[in-house]
């Protein structure tokens, strides 16, 4: 190889290669993420993944039940999972109700004044519904109240599709018993959930 060709090869490798590779990788990653193609999976923990549910339990240490995703019906997705020391919230999006997601929020307490009782969704849980409007939109709030906590579901659906959508999101969100999570964490990681 001539010295000239050696020089060319060196520069391609030393200066151009890493920079191009880095920029290409980053841009592809950015494009994938921004277009939602990265496939990071659902952000809200599923009911079959108790280790991820632990963060929800930590957000409301008193809650005896934790909201989780049982199974998402066709056309539904989750987003905006936000656990913090003040509670946990996330969104349930349906392609039949674009721009109007169901907001699910776990807090230590909630006010159910004006809400009527509904069939309970789990043992030891009291379920209430309060409708803000029926027409032209079917909007309101559903509450699951249990010892130490409350899960509220704020919905706003178009008339006509509301019965199916209500059934679907209630079916999608399950309630995981804290006691069961405590046992799993002790068994799998050897840690106690609460101080």
């Amino acid at each position: 190889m001539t010295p000239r060709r050696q020089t060319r090869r060196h520069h391609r490798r030393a200066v151009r290669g890493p920079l191009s590779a880095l920029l290409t990788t980053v841009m592809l990653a950015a494009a994938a993420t921004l277009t939602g193609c990265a496939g990071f999976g659902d952000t809200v923990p599923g009911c079959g993944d108790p280790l991820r549910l632990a963060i929800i339990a930590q957000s409301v240490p008193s809650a005896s039940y934790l909201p989780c995703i049982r199974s998402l019906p066709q056309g539904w997705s989750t987003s905006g999972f936000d656990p913090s020391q003040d509670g946990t919230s996330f969104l349930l999006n349906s392609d039949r109700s674009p721009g109007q997601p169901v907001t699910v929020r776990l807090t230590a307490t909630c006010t159910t004044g004006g809400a009527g009782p509904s069939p309970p969704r789990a043992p030891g849980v009291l379920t209430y519904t309060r409708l803000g409007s029926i027409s032209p939109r079917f909007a309101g709030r559903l509450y699951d109240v249990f010892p130490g906590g409350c899960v509220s579901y704020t919905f706003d659906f178009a008339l006509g599709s509301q019965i199916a959508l209500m059934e679907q999101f209630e079916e999608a969100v399950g309630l995981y018993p804290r006691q069961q999570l405590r046992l799993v964490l002790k068994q799998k990681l050897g840690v106690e959930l609460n101080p």
Partner: protein
Amino acid sequence: MSVPPVLGIITRADLTVLRAVATVRTAWLTHLMLDVNAALASPWTMRLVPWATIAVLVAFRRFRHLAAYLVIILAAALLVSVMTLEIGRMRPAGIGILGPWQGYAQPSRPVVTLALALVGVLYTLVPAGRWRNRGKWAAAAILAAFCAARLYLAVDHPTDQVTALIIGWPLAVVAFWLTVPNDAFPVSYRGGRKAHLDIGGRRGAAIVTALDHQLGLAVTGVEPCGLEASAGSTPLRIQVRGPDGGTTTLFGKLYALNHLRSDRWYKLARTVIYGRLEDEKPFSTVRRLVEYEDGLLRLMRDAGLPTPRPYGFAEITPEREYLIVMEFFEGAQEIRNAPVDDRVIDDALRVVRRMWDAGIAHRDIKPSNILVRDGHVLLIDVAFAAVRPTPWRQAVDLADMMLTLALASTPEHVYERALSVFAAEDVAEAFAACRSITIPNQLRSLMRADERHLTGRFRQLAPKRSPVPVQLWDIRRVAVTAGLIAALAAAVVLFDIYLSAAGLL
């Protein structure tokens, strides 16, 4: 559900450390740690530092550093998001969490953000050397205080912070090394044009090697020269050892991708503001630019024009950096600094006449491109010259030369001398074609500083002639203008998306 045993071991080890730290908890220490955490993890701090960094980079027009900074911040934000969701780790269990928290624990997002912000400042704003080294200690101290506070408050596990520090410091530093290596893109506040490249370090060595291997020149020294007059390349004075052992001085112009991009933007802006002048075509690559200049040097030399003798060009980095080498006019002075007598005026006008006869236009006639040696005019910087130009473009060359000469003399005298080389109608056409846009920047600013209205005086002296229109409205200009506005709007939208993705909003 199966859990790797190592996860349990790591978690228990983390909690052992946190429990040990918790034994020193006292009321006043808790207050102090809450204050430290609140100050350093606050949204204000987390946004203020990156935004201030971006503002300084824009103010100093350090766009390569800015691009690297934005890309690295985005890459780190994406990496942290992916890792956080994939790992999905809980906060420390079995111990009282005293501070505020949000989201999964591993890696610690606030620690990554602060580390990245500090490293970003160090590697884009602080010059390498003593100041950067001091800055590293200061940044390390701030990070140490932040991590200690968060461990005390049991907001993070120790391993959450270790992972965050790896992403925010060593990984980020490597990314800065790769994208803006200090050898090639040093952080400096010494002034000077950003178009001028640093010729030390690896680039300096590559220049010497390339000139030896490709042009057979034994280089003994390379130094920048005439930087103040050059914006489109990095001019160099090159000392070369000849076969007889003597030393010769050559002139070099280092062209890089940024010069090409600047040229494109400059010509695009002119197209939008003035309409495309007929011969303003940007070069497609740096290689094309140097090939063109080298070819024109040879052509002008063959046409008997007093331009530097070409020595060819060397490839420093394929398709990115090229160095064109030519004769250095030893002992020549810029026309502004040389005595301008009739001999010089006549010679300068004859050079224009010779270009007209040879079918060439220089297109960048200005004082810094006209040298005088022993009463003879020498012409340099032929990169923008054109072969078989329009009569309009040749007329502009004459006007620019006469204006340059008039700065050192009087319009009346220059006009009188011009009539011995050109017809009065030629001069009239030259000043009918002369507009602000056709006058190079340096010449224009010198004319502004001169109290005489040179262009107007030449027009009075020459026969009457209607002005040659420069503003050309065509479909292309309209399309380019509309496209540019659309691109700006898209850039604003994309930047907004970027800010959300990078967590800077």
